[in-house]
């Protein structure tokens, strides 16, 4: 290839050919792994799925389609968001490593690209792109996730090293991740936001105890980690000491792009055909139940489909407006809020259409189980990645300029009230 950048059309054509030869077709009946019908089977299923994801990511890398917007020296393709978008379009109908995009690529890789040292980028990003390093976010703590800056996990300097103690919780994929990006307090005697630092370390490091948490649909994907005297090299610190909140700004920004619009995510957008709550899946449920001609059912199908389409349209237009400066970056919170509320609504529509069959089913009926179990964890869509309430705070205060909430967390963090639960 010449030095000149490949056009989006040429790239898309090359991707089409490559995908046909190298990637397996998506299995629409596979079901999303956290909604697996038999809880006992869930863990084994998830293990298998993660192995598949790593393999698919390695294939993308070998084919020259990993890290499309990542510079070449870190193993990427140095192309543009338009190339990534074109690849994502071509990816429709193929299986792809969807489950390891979030956390590893956004926010972790995105944060490393922006704020990591050259050494960190060279050590980690190529491995991420090859599927060899899956990352987790060690951010939320038992004492609170919305108020991330209230982290109690503490890092104390010891020469060229740091010693971490504390606990992190709700970590997606803590048990299968290789590395973690972790927020910790390095100074208790200054204001809350001024005493934080971000670190990274292997999840297998000594002193990291990973425990599964069982969700109410039976999934055990989430973890709590107990950190006891975990030793971290100073070269694994991300950003300056006590400047962790600056890093967090970018971390949370990239986390919010989960709703769409990130140049670092490889996804066919909607593997949603496999999710139990998109329009076509609800239509399939209704056809099975023999009530697809019921006008009320068609309305539910249409409403669910409309919500997915509105989300898609909104991601496109808000991303464009943010890129052009017509909207500030805080506008991403609108995408988060919309996708959260739209997803819960679609989940309810699926349950309404499936009705009694989705609350008691024949053993092994993944299609109906995914609707009933999906409904049980419905609110996760409004909690994970920052709650919709926090998104509403950002929209009203940062986008609309409404008065900020009164707060009670000024002065040295040591003295900020933490409530009886936090200890």
């Amino acid at each position, binding site marked *: 290839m010449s030095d000149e950048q490949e056009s989006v059309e040429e790239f898309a054509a090359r991707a089409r050919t490559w995908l046909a030869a190298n990637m397996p077709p998506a299995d629409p009946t596979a079901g999303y792994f956290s909604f697996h019908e038999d809880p006992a089977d869930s863990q084994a299923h998830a293990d298998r799925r993660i192995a598949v994801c790593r393999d698919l990511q390695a294939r993308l890398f070998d084919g020259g389609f990993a890290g499309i917007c990542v510079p070449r020296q870190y193993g990427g393709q140095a192309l543009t968001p338009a190339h990534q978008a074109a690849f994502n379009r071509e990816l429709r109908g193929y299986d792809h490593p969807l489950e390891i995009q979030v956390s590893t690529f956004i926010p972790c890789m995105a944060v490393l690209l922006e704020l990591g040292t050259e050494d960190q980028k060279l050590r980690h990003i190529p491995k991420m792109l090859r599927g060899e390093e899956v990352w987790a976010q060690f951010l939320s703590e038992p004492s609170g996730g919305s108020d991330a800056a209230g982290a109690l996990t503490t890092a104390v300097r010891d020469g060229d090293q740091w010693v971490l103690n504390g606990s992190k919780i709700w970590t997606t994929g803590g048990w299968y991740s290789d590395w973690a990006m972790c927020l910790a307090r390095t100074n208790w005697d200054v204001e809350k936001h001024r005493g934080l630092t971000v670190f990274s370390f292997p999840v297998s490091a000594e002193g990291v105890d990973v425990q599964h948490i069982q969700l109410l649909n039976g999934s055990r994907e989430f973890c709590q980690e107990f950190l006891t005297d975990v030793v971290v090299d100073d070269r694994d610190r991300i950003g300056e000491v006590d400047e962790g909140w600056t890093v967090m700004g970018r971390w949370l920004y990239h986390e919010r792009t989960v709703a769409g619009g990130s140049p670092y995510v490889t996804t066919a957008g909607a593997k949603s055909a496999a999710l139990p709550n998109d*329009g*076509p899946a609800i*239509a*399939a449920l*209704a*056809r099975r139940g023999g009530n*697809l*001609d019921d*006008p009320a*059912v*068609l*309305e*539910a*199908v*249409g*409403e669910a*489909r*409309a*919500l997915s*389409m*509105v*989300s*898609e*349209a*909104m991601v*496109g*237009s*808000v991303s464009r407006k943010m890129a052009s400066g017509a909207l500030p970056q805080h*506008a991403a919170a*609108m995408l988060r*809020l*919309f996708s959260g509320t739209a997803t819960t609504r679609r989940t309810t529509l699926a349950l309404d259409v499936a009705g009694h069959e989705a609350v008691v089913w024949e053993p092994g009926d993944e299609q109906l189980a995914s609707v009933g179990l999906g409904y049980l964890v419905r609110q996760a869509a409004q909690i994970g990645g920052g709650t919709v*309430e926090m*998104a*509403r*705070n950002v*929209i*009203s*205060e940062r*986008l*609309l300029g*409404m*008065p900020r*909430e009164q707060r009670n967390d000024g002065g040295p963090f040591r003295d900020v009230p933490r409530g009886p639960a936090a200890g």
Partner: protein
Amino acid sequence: MFATTPDQELLERTTARFLEDRYPVSRLRELADRTSTFDPAVWREGAALGWTSLLVAEGAGGGSVSGNGVADLQVVASLFGLHAAPGPLLGTNVVAAALARWGTPEQQAGPLAALLAGEAAGAWGHATTVGAPGGRRRVVTATPAADGAVVLSGSVATVEGAAEATHLLVTADAPGGPSQHLVPLDAAGVSLTALRGVDLTRRYARVDLHDVALPAGSRVGAPGEADEHDEQLVDLLAAVLTAEMVGAVQRAFTTTLEWTVDRYSFGRPLGSYQAIKHRLADARTQLEASEAVAARAAEALGAGAPDGRAWASAAMAHVAARAPEIVQECVQLHGGIGVTYELDLHLYLRRVVVDSQLYGSATDFARRLGRLVADDEGRAA
């Protein structure tokens, strides 16, 4: 709101300035008491700004400003919503689009040219039942007469601007299948009954056709094509109405945001209470979502994309559901003044209520989309 190209921005600026000047709120309130709100001079000037030509191909005497006339028309329609402006924007553009796409050379040289020039206004007898099970309910029948002439009979409900329009586009059941006809509103046998409704400045009439004899040249398109043609017009309708609703909501939202800053309760601004902030955050997000899906529909329709109908339906299903709710939320956040005639907010509420019900409701369009999804799913299964 909807302008993305420099040419669209120009169209937006000139239209905004013109509407501000001609239809300040004081003028809208005056018009509320008038039988007719149509101002031929204003309409001619609007046509000169481009309001009537956007859905018509250049070859037929029209022209878009950006290459996508549907998107251009959204720029204008959203400003009609923002200003709660009167004027036969929808009827004229829909009739013009029909004549440009399927009209005879005579129809294009005569009625279409007059519509484009702003010399005449069009009315659309949209008696369609969007997404209804078992298809449409036809209210007009066409009986063949000698030499290809036809006689129309029936009653067309809720035609916007019929009193000032020169021509009515209506679909009639005929032996060869449903067909569209262009009916001169001064033809013998046409009678109008003025209706009352919630919008202050838009006027509606029932149009009764008693054995209206029309020459052969009155049919628009081939016999039996009207079902598909009506669907195409409904798609365009969805693009225009959603944009107009977005404009009206934009106005309601902006004034309400200002109000929550200026109004104090318990010694602090209303807008400092999280309960209020969160509701405005929701409203703002729904407004952004509505604009995004409306614009996406225009993009798809203007490009003739195969999923244009799905996007148009999704846009109406969503915007027609959300827009009235957002404006009612704005009313609520105003307290008592919110339900008065004195506050201007109702002008925009009226506009979105009519737009979200008169031509098919959010539920109707959700069903329309649901059918498309079910058909696709059936093919895939």
